[in-house]
């Protein structure tokens, strides 16, 4: 299976679109789900970022949401095909219950990502490329610059509202 950097780039874009869409759709940037998430949002705003983007980053840190669902779904498809992906959705749901979260976003993201990744494996992509693509996608949100990514997420949240 020819694996090129181009495939990894496309996989990163697809998983970025998947998890950001589902997170914004389930109203993650609205408020911090737990007190720790609100605290992270407030500290990011003090550093120059936007408040609602900071809330969403805090929610991603403090409970497994659609980004974790996408990662574990591609891990599941890599190790065991479609049943592995659905089993990973069950694990994400249990993890959400442990972290005091209703767990709709994580489970939905995991199930959609399972079918997206399986569909891409049919046209020549490898699931390993989706694992590293998801790692790159989360790096662009949480790891490069908190100021810019939180402003971007706040802009998306304004679109969702109005």
């Amino acid at each position, binding site marked *: 299976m020819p694996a090129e950097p181009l495939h990894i780039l496309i996989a990163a874009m697809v998983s970025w679109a998947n998890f950001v869409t589902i997170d914004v759709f389930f109203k993650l940037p609205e408020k911090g789900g737990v*007190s720790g998430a609100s605290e*992270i949002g407030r500290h990011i705003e003090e550093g120059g970022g936007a408040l609602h983007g900071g809330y969403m980053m805090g929610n991603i*840190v*403090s409970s497994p949401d659609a980004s974790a669902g996408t990662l574990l779904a591609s891990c599941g498809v*890599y190790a065991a095909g479609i049943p592995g992906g659905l089993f990973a959705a069950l694990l994400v749901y249990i993890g959400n219950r442990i*972290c005091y979260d209703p767990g709709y976003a994580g489970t939905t993201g995991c199930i959609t990502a399972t079918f997206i990744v399986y569909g891409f494996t049919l046209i020549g992509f490898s699931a*390993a*490329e989706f694992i*590293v693509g998801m*790692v790159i996608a989360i790096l662009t949100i949480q790891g490069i610059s908190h100021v810019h990514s939180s402003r971007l997420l706040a802009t998306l949240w304004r679109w969702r509202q109005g």
Partner: protein
Amino acid sequence: MNGYEIALALCGIIALYAAVRVVLEKDTMRKLPFLNVVSFAISGSIVLLIPHPLAIVAAAAYFVGSTLESNAIASTYAGGPKDE
């Protein structure tokens, strides 16, 4: 160097980069998103190292454990749960 090795090396390098950013960041709460990147990269490389069905359970256990740890640190820093 095939695609599998490129993926594994990228995961390792991203994990090291995020770890360096955790150490260099001054504000305690702003360290936690970088720690989240580290745990994403590590649970990805666990599955890439051993493609076995049980590896999903191990990666999910590591990810949930690390998330729970970040959650506990953040809420203790914020002053603990209000309803206790």
